[in-house]
């Protein structure tokens, strides 16, 4: 159970915050930087993050169109053979994306828990997970959930550190990136993530 990295985007797709935690992720970033074949003037790591945002954005539109009316239309996680992205989007347009290894379930009521990664990518959105809460006996109160962690990061760390900072001017823009750097957001986030039972 490994947390690879976390990315936070604003509603326009600007990368507000990104951090890699696991050695695998850090190595991958370094590899990208060294061998990046991106066009001059752009940084391959940023390009990769933008791809992530683009994917989340397009998938959200797709999920919105596929979900029946009056149901919750949110994209919860995307799972591939090597990693899972847990996503959380707020009504104010903030998007959180957490990359973890495949054995971290997304949230308490997800049917697809630790059920061995398939070879094909798998999407979960909230309308497809029927109320099968607590069906798996392997789940107990200490099992960690990716999306719930993101909700906690938003409600407790983002709001406490960033929104309440005097430098906050709104939920998009360059000033916001500076604002985040000036708060203790990164430190709080680090201590929260390392305190999670499934972090290595």
């Amino acid at each position, binding site marked *: 159970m490994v947390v690879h990295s976390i990315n936070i985007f604003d509603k*326009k797709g600007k990368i507000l915050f990104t951090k890699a935690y696991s050695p695998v992720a850090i190595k991958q970033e370094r590899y990208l930087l060294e061998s990046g074949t991106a066009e001059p003037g752009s940084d391959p790591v940023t390009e990769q993050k933008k791809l992530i*945002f*683009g994917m989340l*954005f397009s998938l959200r539109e797709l999920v919105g169109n596929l979900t029946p009316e009056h149901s*919750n239309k949110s994209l919860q996680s995307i799972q591939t053979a090597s990693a899972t992205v847990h996503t959380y989007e*707020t009504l104010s*347009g903030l998007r959180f994306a957490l990359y973890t290894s495949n054995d971290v379930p997304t949230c308490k009521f997800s049917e697809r828990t630790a059920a061995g990664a398939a070879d094909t990518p798998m999407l979960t959105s909230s309308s497809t997970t029927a109320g099968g809460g607590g069906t798996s006996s392997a789940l107990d109160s200490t099992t960690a959930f990716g999306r719930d962690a993101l909700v906690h990061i938003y409600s407790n760390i983002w709001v406490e550190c960033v*929104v*309440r900072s005097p430098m906050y*001017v709104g939920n998009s823009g360059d000033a916001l990136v500076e604002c985040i750097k000036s708060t203790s957001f990164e430190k709080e986030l680090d201590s929260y993530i390392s305190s999670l039972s499934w972090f290595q």
Partner: protein
Amino acid sequence: MSKSANIAAAGHALWANTPKVNTELFALTYGSLITEILRDYDQDISEVNVQLERIGHSIGVRCVDELLAKSEVNGINIPMCRDLRETAEVIAKIGFRMFLGVNCDVGKLTDKSFSLYLSENPLNIFVELPSMSEDEGGSGPDWNQLKYSNIYCGVIRGALEQVNLKVECSFVRDVLRGDEVNEIRVNVKEVLAEGAGEDYHEE
């Protein structure tokens, strides 16, 4: 109907869980803020109104995330508002109740605007505006022009801006000027487009 009952219940639950501050402290601090601003701008009432709205805007920008975060923590789900009426209800029943503990009603709803009625306003509990005496004539500031609680207009404008609604907000009736209720009129100017920024547009 059950939807509005849910919204009202959400507001009450959130109010119960927010840390509280003494109302008198709040009202008196606001009063001294107004006095300071009046002093800074040399009793220019229209400028004071503008500054109050600007202060409210900075506050409003933070309120949305605060409200969403607090409701997540308390297990309350505030879904995306599908029309202006729902937006108005959320502001009135959840926003005002959670942050101030006051009752607020929605009225005069049209496609692009609504009114908020505040029967009790914690900011002006000790306030009375000085009256203009006849012999002063036009020399003193016109206190009737002072929008004492204009900060609310800024808060609403700032908050709605964070959720892609550009609005204009103003006080149309004020208890300090002799009306029975405080009425804030909110007009939607524009719904901002939600989309990825320039970096993502294809060439």
